[in-house]
Every structure is written in structure tokens, then in C-alpha cells.
């Protein structure tokens, strides 16, 4: 075995993607890959079973498209209807290189912006393909009846979105995610009717079945009856979304979790870049100790709203309207005059934190724990002010653009943003890390495919706005149907898995044992209580700013908390019934392990990039400093075994079509 590094991990062999055809230029690779892929005769498709876990944009689109092709698809999700997957919550929009605005957009520019926006930590081939298929997504959605915003001439409208200088974002008021998901959901329900897809609602995948090195099925728990079941297939596709809820408070839906990908990780799938977390700058600040989640306000608000804090800390508790212009610090406009309020998310977020850390935050003071565990009261908010926009455009025009968001803000906070500036603060929003996949979206376990937010592939260290929806649909509608074909053609020859294979019973037994162990707990603390504690550790030490000693501290605290959980937690109710405490407990156990890996990943990457700001790596002006000489790679972690250190495999990132640059938005 290789040596233990930092007492925390070992380094293994390098890895690489071998599927993208590098003998042709980047613009031809996807066509070439599709051409090289094996096909499955239509009559044979119904003999092939595919499990899709997840019904969001990635899963819904994949299950519907595979069903249309005639495969026998089973689609699992934990909500009561496929239409409720977390993709539904996306507000802002979806990018596509249509150049409808004639403003110089192109596939290459979308590719370029995405790689640059991701701080050069994404794989060129995958991102290029994403840009390439983006235009077809819009065609597909319009044909399904997605009611995108339109202009008077009947054509589609566009807007520009955080960090880019062309208008390539398609949107449906503040409900883009909902409308896109309804499109995919309707396509899915059509296949349910056609008999090609079977839906398993309120079913949670709790284990992956691997036989002879291939993904062959899953173990599920029926969340209504508690029944544990195994499902076998020729391929398994995970589209289970992000794991931002490891932080407890995030903009993610309550049920978002890491269980499916973490279980796959424990069965051998590499977990890439786990620490890359996107923090979204425009969320409604936390208001109290019993908050269950944070609400995002669309980033489009930054197009017209101006962000500021008082110049002097003494002014922070004043009514903002009484603070004269000269006493306000429009800090983004001051520091980044070229981009101003529209700087990318990671920069906008970090500067908001800096202002509050300096003591110039606004709004009610919130109880916090500092790195040493001491309680302190901090104001965590900055103003997002529309008074100038209302003066310039009129109240009606502002209301036409942002009315629904203003209403939402008022409903949650009780303040009227037409009268008083909104208060915003960054919150955990999106996880760029996920299971490692190759160009085909196949993990290193043959037959296990991963799409959407659950994989790591397209966003690098920072995701630009409006590109996650694009990725989910690109993967689901256009990539998987082709790459899976190739694999399934092989599986047709391979034949069905033996239902008596011992691995199946073992997987099932491990799930039952885990549930028994949880139900036997007789402690005094609830699952939520532990989850909140985990979230506090992660936010403090592995959130917007990370340091060596803090991350080490966090690892120790996480391990202690996990032990404490096994000593002092209690799960109410019974296993064989609808039991929400049990569901949460299972997810929390996986979060504990993932949290530790996130800290190890953050610790080993001694550079700042994207949303990952290592305090030890900054320029003299306090900007994030990347170290391309040392860290130009994807960190793909292999599970080392129970209580064993994980193994780091590096995939070198090679930029041939885009020149590597330090980012600068000044």
C-alpha cells in the first residue's frame, strides 16, 4: 500500500477518460462517439431493463427518452409524484447557444464561458458537448409545450445571467425549472401510459447491487410500507441530484440527499471533487434558530438591484432609507467596476461574507458559533436595493420584471421590497462534486451511469447560472440515450443476471441490518438535532472559506459527532411503516461519511478556485489564487473501506482548445 498522506488519505493510480475520441477535433467528437457506439435493434430493446433513479430533469428526461426507444425502464424517486423532483425549484433560466440575439454567441463561446466560469476545473470534452447539444434542448422543450417567455413577435425572449456578457438564457418567468420539469414529466407519464416506463413513487434507493464488477440493480425501501425490495437490471442510471443538505441549511429541498451516490461510492464508484460547493449570493438571510431551509431569490435580481452595506458599522442598525448615498458602500461596483453587481456567484458571495465579517452586515443579529465553538452574535445580510431601478424604470416596469420575486420576499420576511431594500446573504446551493464519470457518463463501475447534479462532470469548481438545467436535460435527453445503447448492446450478449446471485441477498441483508441497528437506538437526541450539528460544522469549516487547521478540526468533530449519534440518537416509530425519522437517519449516516470526505478533499487541495476559497491561497488583494501547476486535476476518491483512509486518483485536466488563464473580473 502507498504511504498515508497527512494521516488522512493515500494516493492511487492516475485515471483518465478513455471514451472521448481524441483522434478528431473537439467539434466532431460527439458525432464521432455516437457513430462509433453500438446500436440495439428495436425488437431487442424491450428485453433490456434499465433502472433510472431520480425523476428530475436528468432522470425524468432519461427515463422518458429511454422509454421512447423501447427499453424496459423502471424509474424510482422519493417524492409522491415525479413532477416534484427538486429541479422544479429552479427559477432563473436555462442557457443555450442559439444566438437568437445576434450578440456573438456560439457553441464555442458557451463552451468557453462555462470552462472559464468553472475556473478551469472541468473537462473540456464534456463541456463542449454540453454547449453543442444545448440548442436542441430548447427545440425539444418548446415542442413539448414549455411556455418560455416570448416577445410580441411570437419569438422566444432571452436574458443575460450572472457572469456572462451575452443574452443566452431562456426563461419562463421565475419558474423555469418547474416548466422544464413539467415538460420532462409529461414525456415520462406518456411512457408510463405506453407501458415502457414503470414508476416507483415514494421509493428510496438504499443500496447498489454490484455483481462481477457490474452494476446490476438496486435495493429500495418503500417509504409507505417499509418494505425492502431488490430490483435487477442491465444498467443502472443515477440521477439523484445534489448533496447540499450535508450543510443542513441550504436552498435545496428537504429531501435532497447523497444516499444513492454514497452507496455507489462505497461499492467502488469514485467520488470526484466532493468539496466543490457553490454558494449562491442572493438568498434570504437566516432569521432564527428553527429555520429548516434557506430560500433563494433569483439571480436575475442582480441585473437591476444594487448591492451595498453601510460604510460605517455604526449605521448598520439604522433604517437603510435614512442612510445617505455618501455613507453607502456599493462594494461590488467599487471593487469590480467592469462587472459590478453581476460578478460571478463565488465572488459576490465571498464579498458579502467579507462585509459581514468586517461588522458591516445588516438585519437582525443571529447567534453563531465561531471556529473555537464560542457563541457570538453576527448580522448576516447585505442590501439589495431597487430604489434606483424604480426611479429609472418606474415601479410598474420593476414589478413586471421581478413582481413575483418581490411578493415571495415579502411573504417570507414581512418586508416590502418596493419600500425597503431587500436583505440577502449567500447560502449553499449546488454541489459541483459528484460521482466520477467518463465521456459516456459512465462511472468506473461498468453499467453504472450518473447524470445531472449527481455527477461531477461539467461545471468545474464553480457553476455559472442557468447551466445546471442545461446539463440535466442534455444528459437525460441527448447523451444517455446514445451512450447507454453502446453498453446495452454488450449486455444483450452478456445475458441476464442470476437472481440467486449471493450479492443480491447480501445487499439486501446489509440494508436490513442497518435499519435494525438504527431502530434499536435508545438515546435522547433526534436525528434533526444531529443533522443541524453536522451542518454547523460544515458551514463553519468547509463553507465559503476554508483553512488547514479548521478542516482538521472539522474532521475530528465530524467523527465525534458520528460516534455520539450511535450512542445518543433515537428513532421513533417502527421500521415497517411510513417513518420519516428513519428516512432522515439513513440519509444522515451517509452525510456523516461524505462530510468527512469533503473536508479531506478540501484539505488536500491547497489552492482557491471557484466557490472553494482556501484562505492560505490568495492574491495580495484577497482574491482567490489557483495553482494550476499543482492542482490541474480532478480529484477522484475511491472508498478505502470501513474506517480506512480513502484513496485519491487524479485525472489530469488537459486544456487544448481553451487557453488557461487566471480569472479576473476587475
Amino acid at each position: 500500500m502507498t504511504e498515508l498522506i497527512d494521516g488522512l488519505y493515500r494516493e492511487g493510480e492516475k485515471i483518465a477518460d478513455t471514451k472521448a475520441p481524441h483522434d478528431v477535433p473537439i467539434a466532431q467528437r460527439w458525432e464521432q462517439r455516437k457513430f462509433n457506439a453500438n446500436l440495439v435493434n428495436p425488437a431487442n430493446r424491450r428485453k433490456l431493463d434499465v433502472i433510472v433513479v431520480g425523476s428530475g430533469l436528468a432522470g425524468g428526461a432519461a427515463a422518458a427518452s429511454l422509454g421512447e426507444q423501447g427499453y424496459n425502464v423502471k424509474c424510482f424517486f422519493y417524492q409522491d409524484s415525479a413532477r416534484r423532483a427538486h429541479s422544479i425549484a429552479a427559477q432563473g433560466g436555462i442557457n443555450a447557444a442559439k444566438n437568437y440575439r445576434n450578440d456573438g454567441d456560439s457553441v464555442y463561446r458557451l463552451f468557453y464561458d462555462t470552462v472559464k466560469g468553472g475556473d478551469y476545473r472541468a473537462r473540456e470534452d464534456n463541456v463542449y458537448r454540453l454547449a453543442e447539444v444545448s440548442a436542441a434542448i430548447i427545440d425539444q422543450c418548446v415542442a413539448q409545450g414549455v411556455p418560455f417567455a416570448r416577445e410580441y413577435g411570437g419569438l422566444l425572449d432571452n436574458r443575460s445571467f450572472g457572469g456572462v456578457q451575452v443574452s443566452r438564457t431562456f426563461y419562463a418567468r421565475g419558474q423555469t425549472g418547474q416548466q422544464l420539469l413539467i415538460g420532462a414529466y409529461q414525456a415520462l407519464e406518456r411512457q408510463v401510459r405506453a407501458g415502457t416506463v414503470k414508476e416507483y413513487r415514494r421509493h428510496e434507493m438504499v443500496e447498489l447491487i454490484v455483481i462481477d464488477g457490474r452494476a446490476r440493480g438496486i435495493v429500495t425501501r418503500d417509504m409507505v410500507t417499509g418494505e425492502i425490495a431488490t430490483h435487477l437490471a442491465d444498467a443502472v442510471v443515477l440521477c439523484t441530484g445534489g448533496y447540499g443538505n450535508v450543510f443542513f441549511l441550504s436552498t435545496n429541498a428537504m429531501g435532497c440527499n447523497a444516499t444513492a451516490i454514497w452507496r455507489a461510492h462505497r461499492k467502488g464508484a469514485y467520488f470526484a471533487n466532493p468539496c466543490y460547493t457553490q454558494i449562491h449570493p442572493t438568498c434570504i438571510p437566516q432569521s432564527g434558530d428553527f429555520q429548516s431551509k434557506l430560500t433563494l431569490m433569483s439571480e436575475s435580481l442582480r441585473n437591476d438591484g444594487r448591492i451595498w452595506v453601510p460604510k460605517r458599522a455604526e449605521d448598520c442598525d439604522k433604517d437603510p432609507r435614512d442612510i445617505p448615498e455618501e455613507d453607502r458602500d456599493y462594494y461590488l461596483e467599487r471593487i469590480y467596476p467592469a462587472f459590478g453587481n453581476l460578478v460571478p456567484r463565488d465572488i459576490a458571495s465571498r464579498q458579502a461574507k467579507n462585509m459581514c465579517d468586517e461588522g458591516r452586515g445588516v438585519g437582525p443579529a443571529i447567534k453563531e458559533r465561531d471556529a473555537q465553538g464560542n457563541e457570538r452574535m453576527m448580522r448576516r445580510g447585505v442590501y439589495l436595493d431597487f430604489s434606483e431601478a424604480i426611479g429609472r424604470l418606474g415601479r410598474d416596469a420593476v414589478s413586471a420584471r421581478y413582481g413575483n420575486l418581490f411578493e415571495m420576499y415579502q411573504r417570507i420576511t414581512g418586508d416590502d421590497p418596493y419600500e425597503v431594500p431587500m436583505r440577502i446573504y449567500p447560502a449553499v446551493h449546488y454541489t459541483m462534486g459528484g460521482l466520477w464519470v467518463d465521456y459516456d457518463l459512465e462511472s468506473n463501475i461498468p453499467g453504472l451511469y450518473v447524470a445531472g447534479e449527481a455527477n461531477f462532470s461539467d461545471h468545474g469548481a464553480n457553476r455559472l447560472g442557468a447551466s445546471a438545467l442545461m446539463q440535466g436535460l442534455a444528459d437525460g435527453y441527448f447523451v444517455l440515450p446514445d451512450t447507454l445503447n453502446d453498453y446495452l448492446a454488450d449486455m444483450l450478449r452478456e445475458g441476464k443476471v442470476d437472481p440467486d446471485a449471493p450479492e443480491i441477498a447480501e445487499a439486501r441483508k446489509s440494508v436490513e441490518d442497518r435499519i435494525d441497528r438504527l431502530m434499536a437506538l435508545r438515546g435522547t437526541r433526534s436525528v434533526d438535532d444531529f443533522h443541524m450539528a453536522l451542518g454547523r460544522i460544515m458551514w463553519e469549516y468547509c463553507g465559503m472559506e476554508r483553512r488547514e487547521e479548521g478542516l482538521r478540526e472539522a474532521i475530528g468533530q465530524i467523527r465525534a459527532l458520528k460516534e455520539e449519534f450511535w450512542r445518543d440518537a433515537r428513532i421513533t416509530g417502527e421500521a415497517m411503516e411510513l417513518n420519516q425519522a428513519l428516512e432522515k437517519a439513513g440519509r444522515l449516516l451517509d452525510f456523516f461519511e461524505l462530510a468527512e470526505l469533503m473536508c479531506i478533499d478540501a484539505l488536500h487541495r491547497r489552492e482557491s478556485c471557484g466557490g472553494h476559497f482556501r484562505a492560505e491561497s490568495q492574491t495580495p488583494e484577497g482574491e482567490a489564487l489557483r495553482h494550476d501547476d499543482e492542482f490541474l486535476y480532478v480529484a477522484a476518491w475511491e472508498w478505502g473501506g470501513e474506517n480506512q483512509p480513502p484513496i485519491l486518483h487524479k485525472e489530469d485536466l488537459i486544456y487544448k482548445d481553451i487557453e488557461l488563464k487566471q480569472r479576473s473580473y476587475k
Partner: protein
Amino acid sequence: MNIKLKIWRQKNQDSEGHFEEYSMTGIEEHMSFLEVLDLLNEQLFAEGEEPVAFDSDCREGICGQCGVVINGQAHGPIRSTTCQLHMRHLAEDPSFKDGSTITIEPWRSTGFPVLKDLIVDRSALDRIVQAGGYISVNTGAAPEAHSVPVQKDKADAAFEAAACIGCGACVAACPNASAMLFTGAKISHLGLLPQGQPERLARVVNMLNQHDAEGFGGCTNIGECAAVCPKSVPLEVITRLNRDLGHALWKGQKATA
């Protein structure tokens, strides 16, 4: 503030339900209604009792997963989803006093069987969609998006209907337990767009057949549905549904497989 909660408890689909009362203190105005339920559950946990099961996911008014009847009204006294209801909204009611009792029940409808406590099964709504609530276009077969312009007023009206989140409040509020607002919303959304025309008449017939087969009642124009709809889906969608249905019957449109 201090409040009492009177909550429907039911172990599972096969058992009988009953109301239980709980007292809570120290509730703050800015708390959301579901956060109060979270807090109640922590309190029940501490007392060694089983927490109340209720559904929610996004907690920002868009997924449609939450939804309970509060003091007799679906999603409570303001037009919103249950997750977007805050204690200050309840406190605005003049009859609300310190120590007031708030009654919480699951959606009431035969089409929505109770699974546990406040959680119901709304899969009937998905089956209505399966019957025809889509445009049949296969992946990859779509024409260029700008090849079919859509008149802005049509697009806007389609949007208004498309805003339905499938929460089921309309059914819970309707004395006939009719799902007509939901069904009408889908029929309007797709029927107003040029892309939705080829299947328009078959869609209305198929979806309505399924609606009736699920045990939802007919519409007698009471309007409770639109009054509680958190997304302000207008009653006109039912008018449009009826118009399409009339047209379909007149044309002799039969249900399709």
C-alpha cells in the same frame, strides 16, 4: 405567542383517525407554518411520543408536495402553499388570540386516501396526466424552436394555466371533490399552444374519462377551487375545458388508447 394545535392522527391507510391536541409556547411570528410543525415534532420527540407525519419538500411554494387543511381552509387563510404560510399571516386574523386553537387536517377527498397523519396519496392526479396530459413528441424529433411563433397573449394565458403545481388544494376545497381546476389547467396550458393542437380533442376526452374513473366529482361552478389555488389558476380553465369537451363530443371524438 402560545398556540394549541388540533391535529389529525392516523396510523396508516387502514386504521381509523382521530384528533389530538397539543399546546405550544414561544412561537414566533416569522416562523413558517411547517417550521412550527417541525418544532412540535421536536417537542413530541422529547416527550417520547411519535412525531406527526406531514409532506413537504421544496418549502418554497413550488413543488406542490406540502398541503393540509388549516382551520377548514386548504393551505390556510391566505392564498399560498402551506410551506409559504407564516405565523404572522395567521396572527393577522382578528379572531386569533394568544392561546388560539389551530385545526390541521389532511386533504379531504375520496380521490386522496390518507397514508398517515397528514399525508395523502395524490397519485390519481398523475394518472389523469398519463391519460393525455402531454404533447406527443419524441426526443430528438423536435423542429427548430423558432419555426412556430406563439402569439404573446396566447403564450401568457398558457403560462397562467401551466403554473399549476399539482398540489390538490382545489380538490380538497371543492364540496364535490372535483379535480376540474387541475385538469382544466393542463388542458388549457397545452390547448392554447399551437404545438398542442393535434391532440387537443382526444386529450380532453381521455383526461376527463380518467378524472371520473378516479372518483373525482363533477364541477358545479362553486369556485372554491380557484379561491384556494396557490398559483391563482383562473376558473376560466374549466370553461375552456368544457368548451373543448363540447367540441370533441360534437366532432364525435372517442377516447383513444
